[in-house]
């Protein structure tokens, strides 16, 4: 072992079961496998066809989030599924988990929630672990100094059967963010600014470490938002070195080590940070103090600009096509665009601090007439915490809908979606054409920007709502 290893090098090396050769990828051990209903059924089918059992149900945990309704059950206890297929998919995971002895945080479970919210919440996600899930936003867990990445369904089957994946080591990139984020600027804005800087494929083939003073001062929620969006720059892996902020967050959670075991674990976690002279294949510097609240104006997450700027003129056919889809007039300020819907939620921005930030702006104000605003907490636990603080009352009194936890309008496969042509300001992660419903135009933004836009009925700068006590 040399002393010029990066966080990523260390995490990788500790999980090699069989080293990589020119002929074959490394066999990499997986410490935590998170499973949800959409990307797992076909993997369980392959296991059944081969007569293979789930090798480590104790390292596997499942939840229901993508296809589940966010409206409550009717008086007969029936949930309003979008389609019979959605219900069948949920029932399939329930059966598969029962059959293979996998803990399922199912409907009615007080710990159910979006897969990338509950892993950290339960203390399952820990520094030094490898975490996979059949979901590209698995990079979220990298916020803890874990090696976390999204896999396909075939690989879900591989992990269920062997607790390993076949993976070649990607190149490494360090994004160093220095400078203080200005008031009203959130981790989401930092993420969008980075993606705008490096491009939607700028991180392709790389594992990204986010470093620098700005990242060190981010809360765990902020770090999760940042790592969550790594894949929108094309990188499967995003990570932050664990530090006191991380240890404090993990300690005391259900699956976290306790007592002496925790002390020992923290000692192990402390040495994970990149060595001073660690080598990276690529290094990028970001001046975080210059970042404004960001909004996207196209159909790829890298088309992002400050909320108080104007629609740039298209420089290529691709940009022209995107501008036509978005119906944003060139040289018009973004604030000229009327909003039909606002979505506050998703694995990017559905945590308590996100809800607090949105509530700080909505408190005592009303959602603009004609705008539908949906607030969807990331988990049952967040829902309880938010309700204990009366945040739900703030949203409901403002005229927003307070829903049950789930992925909801981020992927729009549970029936929560916009109508063709509508403009949605969304705290989720993807503004692809039709992502939030056929023909829907998506603007990605922070919870504060989304809340301000709901109030004004047009794309709005949250900074004008900054006042004493309004911590966005």
């Amino acid at each position: 072992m040399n002393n010029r290893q990066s966080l990523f090098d260390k995490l990788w090396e500790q999980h090699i079961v069989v080293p990589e050769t020119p002929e074959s990828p490394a066999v990499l051990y997986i410490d935590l496998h998170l499973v949800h209903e959409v990307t797992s059924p076909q993997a369980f089918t392959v296991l059944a066809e081969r007569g293979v059992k789930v090798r480590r149900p104790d390292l596997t945990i499942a939840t229901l989030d993508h296809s589940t309704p966010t409206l409550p059950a009717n008086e007969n206890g029936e949930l309003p599924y979008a389609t019979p297929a959605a219900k069948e998919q949920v029932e399939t995971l329930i059966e598969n988990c029962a059959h293979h002895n996998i803990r399922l945080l199912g409907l009615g479970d007080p710990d159910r929630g979006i897969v990338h919210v509950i892993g950290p919440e339960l203390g399952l996600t820990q520094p030094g672990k490898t975490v996979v899930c059949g979901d590209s936003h698995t990079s979220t867990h990298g916020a803890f100094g874990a090696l976390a990445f999204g896999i396909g369904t075939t690989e879900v089957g591989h992990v269920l059967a062997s607790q390993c994946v076949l993976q070649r080591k990607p190149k490494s990139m360090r994004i160093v963010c220095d400078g203080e984020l200005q008031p009203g600027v959130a981790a989401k804005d930092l993420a969008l600014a980075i993606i705008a800087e490096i491009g939607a494929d700028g991180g392709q083939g790389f594992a990204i470490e986010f470093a620098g003073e700005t990242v060190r001062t981010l809360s765990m929620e902020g770090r999760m938002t940042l790592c969550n969006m790594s894949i929108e720059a094309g990188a499967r892996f995003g990570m932050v070195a664990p530090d006191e902020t991380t240890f404090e967050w993990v300690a005391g959670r259900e699956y976290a080590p306790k007592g002496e075991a925790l002390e020992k674990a923290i000692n192990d976690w402390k040495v994970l940070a990149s060595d001073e002279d660690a080598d990276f294949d690529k290094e990028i510097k970001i001046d975080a103090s210059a970042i404004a609240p960001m909004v996207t104006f196209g159909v790829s997450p890298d088309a992002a600009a400050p909320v108080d700027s104007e629609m740039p003129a298209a420089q290529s056919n691709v940009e022209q096509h995107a501008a036509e889809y978005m119906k944003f007039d060139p040289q018009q300020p973004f604030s000229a665009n009327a909003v039909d819907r606002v979505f506050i939620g998703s694995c990017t921005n559905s945590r308590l601090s996100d809800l607090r930030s949105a509530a700080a702006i909505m408190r005592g104000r009303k959602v603009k007439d004609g705008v539908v605003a949906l607030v969807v907490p990331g988990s049952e636990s967040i829902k309880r915490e938010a309700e204990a603080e009366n945040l739900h009352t703030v949203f409901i009194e403002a005229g927003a809908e307070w829903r049950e936890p789930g992925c909801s309008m981020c992927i729009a496969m549970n029936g929560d979606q916009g109508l063709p042509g509508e403009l949605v300001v969304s705290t989720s992660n993807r503004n692809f054409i039709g992502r939030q419903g056929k023909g829907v135009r998506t603007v990605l933004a922070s919870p504060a920007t989304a809340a301000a836009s709901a109030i004004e009925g047009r794309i709005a700068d949250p900074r004008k709502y900054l006042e004493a006590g309004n911590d966005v």
Partner: protein
Amino acid sequence: MMFEPFQRLTSRTIVLSQENIDTDQIIPARFLTTTSKEGLGQSVFFDWRYNTEGRLRNDSPLDGFAPSEFEILVAGPNFGCGSSREHAPWALSDFGFRAVVSSDIADIFKSNALKNGLLPVEVDKKTHQQLMKTPGAEVTIDLESQTVRIGHDWQTVFEVEAFARRCLLDGVDPLGHLIKQLPTIEAYERRRDEL
């Protein structure tokens, strides 16, 4: 488990020249509630091919021909970006494609495609441009020699991960390889438990 081996493919191309074609375009999320891999081909690029009433528009390069004659999809850069849904390669395969050629293919899509007999081929920019401007061209992709030939006078090589290439050439799936490693995996677990 055995699959149909992929050795050499000669077919005509369909070109979708847009940049950043994401997996939501390839297969919209509302089709992901399936619990099987079958039949996703009819929903491939659904919102590009059908109008709001669900009728086939027939104005997409993907329609109005016999899919069996066009097994190669040529696409703009950063093809397959976005989600990890394996439904994207399942849908493309089920539609009839056996290879996707671009200058730049997203990581997770590439990894998923290789496991489903759909060969992702990343070619140099010049070859890519040539392919983009000649829809319907006859192209031969030879996985053994890792070459792409356009017509008679254009040939180039491409990179493909060695293990995935072997699996495709032999028609075997990698799960067998992992299961063979079980004793080593168990030894790794024991070593870790002792720490």
